[in-house]
């Protein structure tokens, strides 16, 4: 312990004392350039991890949730605009994104220890996993839905009468948020009889 403190003190002395060989200009400019490189690399890796290809690189996602998405309107539709995994599951704003990425370290743990590495295990955990996502979207007022779907820009005359009615009664008034009604639109639902907040 004493040796460790001595080591820390030595390093602290080195870090706090002025540079003996390098000019201030070199350190400042060099530090900036190196920082830019590190930042760029970090962001690049983050962006690679934020692609659908990365998500379905694991069989847990590819064979369970991704195949279900492929049947839905968020994957195939008349205009060909589609949502990819991170569009809905990773917040777009930087701070929120980093927070979510930090949470996702739990998912790395799950991957390493095979928490959902078979279909049976996935089905067993499905409700819990879904409830995490519903809670997240409820808490941020369905932000990921609203990144594309804006209530202010919905033309209710172009919606079916029941959709227009429900949206004007619950969405516009702020009584409910998207995920309250639109659960299971991109993936199949788990057993809902025991789901929280289900009527």
């Amino acid at each position: 312990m004493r040796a460790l403190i001595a080591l820390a003190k030595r390093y602290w002395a080195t870090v706090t004392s002025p540079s003996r060989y390098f000019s201030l200009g070199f350190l400042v400019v060099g530090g900036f350039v190196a920082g830019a490189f590190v930042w760029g690399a970090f962001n690049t890796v983050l962006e690679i991890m934020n692609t659908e290809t990365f998500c379905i690189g694991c069989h847990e996602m590819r064979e369970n949730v991704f195949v279900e998405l492929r049947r839905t309107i968020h994957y195939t539709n008349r205009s060909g605009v589609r949502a990819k995994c991170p569009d809905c599951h990773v917040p777009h704003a930087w701070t929120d994104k980093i927070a979510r990425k930090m949470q996702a370290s739990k998912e790395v743990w799950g991957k390493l220890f095979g928490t959902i590495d078979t279909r049976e295990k996935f089905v067993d955990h499905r409700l819990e996993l879904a409830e995490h996502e519903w809670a997240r979207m409820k808490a941020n007022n369905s932000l990921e839905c609203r990144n594309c779907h804006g209530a202010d820009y919905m033309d209710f005359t172009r919606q079916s009468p029941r959709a227009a009615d429900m949206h004007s009664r619950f969405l516009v008034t702020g009584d409910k948020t998207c995920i309250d009604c639109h659960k299971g639109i991109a993936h199949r639902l788990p057993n809902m009889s025991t789901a929280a907040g289900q009527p």
Partner: protein
Amino acid sequence: MRAAMLLCLFVAANAFAQAPITDAMRGSTPVGDTSRPPPLGNPENKDMRRERTYSMQPPTIPHKIDNYQVDLNTNACLGCHSRGRAPLTQAVAVSVSHYMDRDGNFLAEISPRRYFCEQCHVPQVDAKPLVVNRFLDVDEVIKQSGTKSSPKR
């Protein structure tokens, strides 16, 4: 011998292929070929209740039900049409008959034999009928037979 058999087969096959078989649903496609099915229609989505053709007819669904999940896990229809949800959604609540088992006992939940809505209730496409249908509404039958019907319901 072999050549004669082959010839026979060839002639028979040709006879089949040329036989003028027409079917209302298949058109003139020979039976041996796969017909090209018409494209799927776009279900009506007007949310206007339709008339029942006879009193016991299960009402048809006046809206789209694409990708509605009805399985062991959940029933998307009951998300709006169940007794508890109908006041909120203003959907037509499931009929009382659907809460009865086959012995006429009332259950707390939808009877399992009624659980799969699409067995009886289906959406409709505005399509031309493939075959002639001479079905007459019972009111029409009574009118045509000339007998006096009971006062209009």
